[in-house]
């Protein structure tokens, strides 16, 4: 890296700035190193920072160890069917950083990224880089979604996002309303109910999945059926596919679904739709949301059965329909029912607050075509970015190969070819 030390001593140039030293950023760093491309990896905290500091205590990966791999690097322990804890994931990623010999500037949060002529300018607190390409590998979970009505909760109720929650012991005494029925919401409702608290779970659209089917892990089936490899340009409704909530799974050898929660005493209500004074209001559409999830599950299992036809793989199974009480609650008086905490398990979105480029849609979401954001600007690790598995650790390999090859080619082009490519990309690749 050359340093241009006259007027702005704290600046440098490089070919590529990679933002984020999680699994995606490191895998891209390995790809760039393998092609001899000068780059820096900027990390706001430590390597695998989110896994170290932004996960609840009991969290484990939803993917089994055999599936948890990065380019040329896989799990080598003695429990291939187990699920890594957050600390183990952090260790896995940190070892990978050592394995690929990555140079990471830790403790270096990015303050701004802007176009600078043909190049980009990336500024951190202490330093500025001029570079020809930027890879945003800062993760899909930077910001926990918290609906605006959280601000109107009664004063006696504490509002907690899934990023702030750690364990049931840290919660104030009293009941808990968990909002959201994806993997996060179900796991939190489960362990909080197990700690002896009254839990209500607000359930909207959700994806029901058993942990195992016909003797194999569900991830094995999803892989075999080609579902995880489905490409972004092959699905009918990509906007919707990217919005699909994470399946109801827990990183353990058991199925965690709404029936399991009901059996634990968790009260299931419809989607949280409003707050009227102290009273939370739920949608009356719960029955249909559950019916829909049951139907989708049955269709998925039909596909798996077709795959299993003629083999000796276990027995065909069907799961009991989701139990919904005759009149699910439409309201919950948070004060009278002594609800002390509302936990928002309402999803996450990436944090691009530092990106000063016109690359967002009318809802503030990053516009990208399979990770191509703008000429020279790439994203990684987003939901269904290039493939359904894009947001998983094992999804990084194919995406990094695709985008990394493109990036290497981009840097090697002559300025005039790059200008033409820029036009083409604007026209939609």
């Amino acid at each position: 890296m050359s340093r241009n030390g006259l007027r702005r001593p704290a600046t440098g140039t490089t070919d590529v700035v990679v933002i984020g030293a999680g699994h995606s950023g490191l895998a891209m760093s390995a790809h760039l190193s393998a092609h001899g491309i000068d780059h820096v990896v900027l990390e706001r905290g430590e390597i695998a920072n989110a896994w170290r500091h932004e996960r609840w205590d009991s969290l484990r990966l939803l993917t089994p160890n055999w599936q948890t791999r990065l380019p040329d690097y896989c799990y080598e322990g003695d429990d291939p069917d187990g699920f890594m804890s957050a600390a183990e994931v952090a260790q896995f990623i940190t070892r990978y950083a050592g394995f690929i010999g990555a140079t990471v500037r830790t403790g270096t949060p990015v303050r701004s990224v802007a176009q600078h002529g043909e190049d980009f300018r990336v500024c951190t607190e202490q330093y500025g880089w001029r570079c020809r390409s930027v890879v945003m590998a800062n993760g899909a979970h930077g910001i926990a979604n918290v609906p605006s009505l959280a601000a109107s909760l009664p004063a006696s109720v504490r509002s907690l996002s899934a990023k702030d929650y750690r364990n049931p012991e840290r919660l104030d005494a009293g009941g808990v309303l968990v909002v959201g029925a994806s993997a996060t919401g179900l796991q939190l409702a489960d362990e909080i109910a197990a700690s002896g608290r009254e839990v209500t779970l607000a359930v909207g659209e959700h994806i029901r999945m058993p942990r195992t089917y016909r003797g194999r892990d569900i991830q094995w089936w999803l892989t075999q059926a080609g579902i995880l490899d489905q490409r972004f340009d092959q699905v009918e409704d990509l906007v919707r596919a990217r919005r699909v909530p994470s399946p109801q799974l827990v990183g353990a050898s058991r199925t965690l679904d709404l029936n399991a929660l009901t059996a634990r005493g968790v009260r299931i209500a419809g989607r949280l739709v409003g707050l009227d004074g102290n009273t939370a209001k739920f949608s009356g559409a719960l029955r249909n949301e559950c019916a829909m999830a049951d139907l989708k599950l049955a269709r998925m299992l039909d596909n798996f059965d077709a795959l299993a036809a003629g083999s000796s793989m276990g027995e065909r199974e069907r799961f009991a329909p989701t139990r919904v009480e005759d009149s699910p609650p439409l309201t919950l008086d948070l004060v009278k029912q002594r609800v002390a905490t509302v936990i928002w398990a309402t999803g996450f979105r990436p944090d691009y607050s530092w990106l000063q480029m016109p690359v967002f849609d009318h809802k503030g979401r990053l516009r990208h075509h399979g990770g191509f954001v703008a000429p020279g600007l790439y994203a990684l690790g987003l939901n269904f970015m290039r493939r359904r598995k894009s947001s998983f650790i094992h999804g990084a390999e194919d995406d990094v190969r695709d985008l990394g090859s493109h990036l290497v080619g981009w840097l090697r082009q002559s300025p005039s070819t790059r200008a033409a490519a820029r036009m083409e990309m604007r026209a939609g690749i």
Partner: protein
Amino acid sequence: MKMTTPVDNGVNVEALLGARQALTDAPEAAQFKWRATCSWVRGTHSRSSVEKFFGLGTEQSHKTEFKYDADHPAIFASEDMGATPVEYVLVGLASCLTAGIAAVAQNRNIQLRSVKATLEAGMDLQGILGIDSDVRNGFSGIKVVFDIDADATREEINALVAQSQRRSAVFDIVTNPTNVTVEVR
């Protein structure tokens, strides 16, 4: 209507999908306003009409003005000149779900032969009569039963009905709260 596919439920899916794409690209054209007027006739009898609405950025009109009489039945000492207002809610829900079933079926290439919805809504009159303040005025619940004859499996029909609820405006209106502003001019 001439369809290119052999399945014909009388729904122009291409037009609907085209509209979806057009409104994705121009969200302001998606802003619609639905309107109704209602005049008191006598007693509990009123007559409502719908004709004009706003959408695609301009004033629109039905082919003709539609009129609806509403009243209460004789057991409420009324003259029973029309359906009760709450029955109109059932009519709205049923027709919305049914239209959705036809559209989704067309999109999924399912030929419908007959679709019949039967609705029942419970109501405890102690609510509107002010006898018990713990009882709400409105329905305690709504039950919709569909009888559907179509070239499809039971699961496909169940999925049609589920999807029509997911996409239904009236289903959303009755299952979720809506801010209502009533003023006097």
